[in-house]
């Protein structure tokens, strides 16, 4: 009955087949060709996935190679002639430096630049009413069309009470109501899920502000109590503004940038 490490045990006792090493070597050598063949043959979604994987592998490989190259690279230095006395046989040589191309400082700078946060969105796309609202037909023969349903995510405060359905002009569906937003603090470079307090301004229209519609570019007020921010005076901050940076109706979540 095979039990525990029986495969290793068997190899230890009886060894491998005589041509094991050779077969292994050949299989490995053949593998690249097989991969290439497969890459040419594959199509569809699998091709997409496979090629992406190969692409990233190739990039990684190139990077590694480059790093090795850099390690061995010889660069000219500005102060060509070294200080002090130099023997005659070294005089015609230019000063060389074995160092990486980029200094660490430069790299750091680049990283910072890439990581700098954009200013919040100054411009937004206009949204027409017919995109924002869906007409709800009412009446016994569905002939009246004065009711509207908001088809974008909305924020509805806790204390909201509906008007009698008969007179309610705007419906904000329960499925599209949001209470939390993923807010990024640009300086802390961290993202928190914070409760929304209210909609400050929707740049599209004051009516949308009133309805609490959350679209890209909307300024919302979020509860930052759990971040533990304090004012210069030492008071604990709890309400802060943030601007929505994504299209919530397309993503199913609200991403916002804290305005500091």
């Amino acid at each position, binding site marked *: *009955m095979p039990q525990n490490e029986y495969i290793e045990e068997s190899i230890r006792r009886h060894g491998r087949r005589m041509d094991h090493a050779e077969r292994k070597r050949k299989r490995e050598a053949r593998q690249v060709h097989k991969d290439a063949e497969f890459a040419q043959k594959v199509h569809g979604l699998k091709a997409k996935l496979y090629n992406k994987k190969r692409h990233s592998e190739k990039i990684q490989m190139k990077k590694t190679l480059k790093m090795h190259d850099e390690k061995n690279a010889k660069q000219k230095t500005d102060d060509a002639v070294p200080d002090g006395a130099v023997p005659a046989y070294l005089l015609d040589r230019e000063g060389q430096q074995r160092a990486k191309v980029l200094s660490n400082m430069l790299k750091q700078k680049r990283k910072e630049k890439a990581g700098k946060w954009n200013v919040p969105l100054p411009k937004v796309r206009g949204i027409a009413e017919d995109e924002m609202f869906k007409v709800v037909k009412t009446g016994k023969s569905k002939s009246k069309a004065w009711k509207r349903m908001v088809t974008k995510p909305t924020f509805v405060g806790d204390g909201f009470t509906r008007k009698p359905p008969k007179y309610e002009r705007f419906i904000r569906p329960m499925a599209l109501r949001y209470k939390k937003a993923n807010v990024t603090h640009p300086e802390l470079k961290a993202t928190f899920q914070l409760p929304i307090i209210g909609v400050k301004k929707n740049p599209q229209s004051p009516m949308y502000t009133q309805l609490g519609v959350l679209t890209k570019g909307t300024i919302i007020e979020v509860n930052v109590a759990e971040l533990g921010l304090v004012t210069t005076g030492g008071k604990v901050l709890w309400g802060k503004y943030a601007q929505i940076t994504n299209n919530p109706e397309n*993503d199913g979540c609200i991403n916002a940038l804290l305005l500091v």
Partner: protein
Amino acid sequence: MSSIYNFKKIAPVPEAGDFLDIVLSKTQRKTPTVVHPGYKITRIRQFYMRKVKYTQETFDEKLHQILTEFPVLDNVHPFYADLMNVLYDKDHYKLALGQLNTAKHLIDSVGKDYVRLLKFGDSLYRCKQLKRAALGRMATVMKRQKDSLSYLEQVRQHLARLPSIDPNTRTLIVCGYPNVGKSSFMNKVTRADVDVQPYAFTTKSLFVGHMDYKYLRWQVIDTPGILDHPLEERNTIEMQSITALAHLRASVLFFIDLSEQCGYTISDQISLFHSIKPLFANKPTLLVMSKTDVCTIDDVRPEERQLVENAVSDGVSLCQLSSYHETGITETRDLACDRLLQQRVEMKLKGSKISGVLNRINVAQPGRRDTVERPVHIPEAVLRRRQQLQQQRDAAGDDEDDETMGRVLERDLEIEGGGAGVYNVDLKKRYLLASDEWKYDVIPEIIDGKNVADFVDPDIEEKLAELEREEEKLAAEGLYDSPDESMDEEERRIRDTARRIRERKQIIAQTSHINDVNRAKLTAKAKASVSTTEDFSEHLQRLGLNPALADETAQRAGRKRGRSESQDPAVKMARSSSMAARAVSVIRDRSVMGLKDERSRVATEKSKSMAMRQRNLMARAGEADRAIQSKKPKHLFTGKRSIGSNDRR
């Protein structure tokens, strides 16, 4: 052997990346892939909702499978639970499964949320984005389970390689310090083939082997060596032994090496025995002194000997064995097995189920029917034989009861004759011949100057052929035909009449069937056409009348009466003559009807074939081909169709 704990069937757990690929490609394969912005919005929504829902269900199914297949530590036997705790760390294991469970719930809720959002999707783009976000979030949840999944895969692989130990069966556990000969003993009593090496901790995990004793199946468990230190300091290897000792109801064989070749003194070994003694409670325990080929109990110093003897208390017995010389192994095994069996029987007798078994045991004693004595019948020969034996035994003075009743068995003969393979069985011994002296006689090849070949008839083939020929001749003459002469004139007549009666009866039955009142009837006209002149003449013949009468009657019935009386004979004359001229009907070929002569006919023929040539070359439909002018005649395909079908109008 069937074990209730089979961990070999757990399906492999894919890595997080593979997991995603599997699920997403399944969605791609199993859901529709074509959608257009022009579709009705409900259809587009439906399309994307299905994708989200399907992905979520696939994730759910896969995770559920993992969660159900892995054993729950609370539900398995405590031995396995403890072993898994030692090997894989219970907390880690539970945490991994718990995280997968959480991931499952998260994915479910993501799927639910996005399906809800999709209901409000108002364009293909928005629906697509929502689907993308949903699948992305599910993937993110799954990616976070990378570590749990790889851990579970490792656990699965290890679980599958665990020896299949049945915790409830008859078991012997071999334990002791490292390198004292546990595995050697194991290899001697079972076929487990455990690795034996001259260094400590060769055996790093539990091994199981099986053997037969008293027609029962026993499992022997070889454990890794244990050192004498507190439980907290024990490592994983030692803990496996402890687990086995703690949870299995088994006979324990504690091995000590008196020669101290293992590197530990006798006093160390005995102190280990004392320190793990609590684990032996209620188990038959044997203190086994191994390697007696090197050193026996008589060779050790008296104080150490004293130590060993002190260890032997009630419930512990002492044995010696040498795996090298193969002495004492069977005795040790038998002792351990017997003691365990005895204990198990005692346990069963104490248990509540025993009454059910005991009640079923019944020896039937038939009641006395009458006063006639019906003793056991023993054949006379047997009684005589018994008496004879008894006398012999008395003479010899031994009191042993021999089952064979003094007969010499073939087996004894075999042992005397040099054992199996050497002894040749005497097959002629029991031949039944007229004289016993003939038993060993050799059948001679030649006797009285003749051998077997001399008794073979040289022309047997010829004789056979002759016989066959004779047979053929007889068959041709009709020797084997069934006798048919018995039928004489009288009988033939009777048979003939009978046949006619039968036919007649059949005909009557058929006609009555035809004339059945309840049957649908033919019209008078149809019926009339059925009867023919032949039928009529046959009928007349049957009645014994002249059949020619039928023809005459028929002709008379069919002929129209001429206007012989009213018509003028001259006219009649003229008519008949013109009729005679038209005896042969004129063949009218319409293709040549309008043509004057042969020449014009040939010319027409030629121009026709020329006209058709091109069409024939191109295999086009000509005038002669079948053509359907209108495939859908309007009157059949227009108008209301509230009732009926098109072809019924």
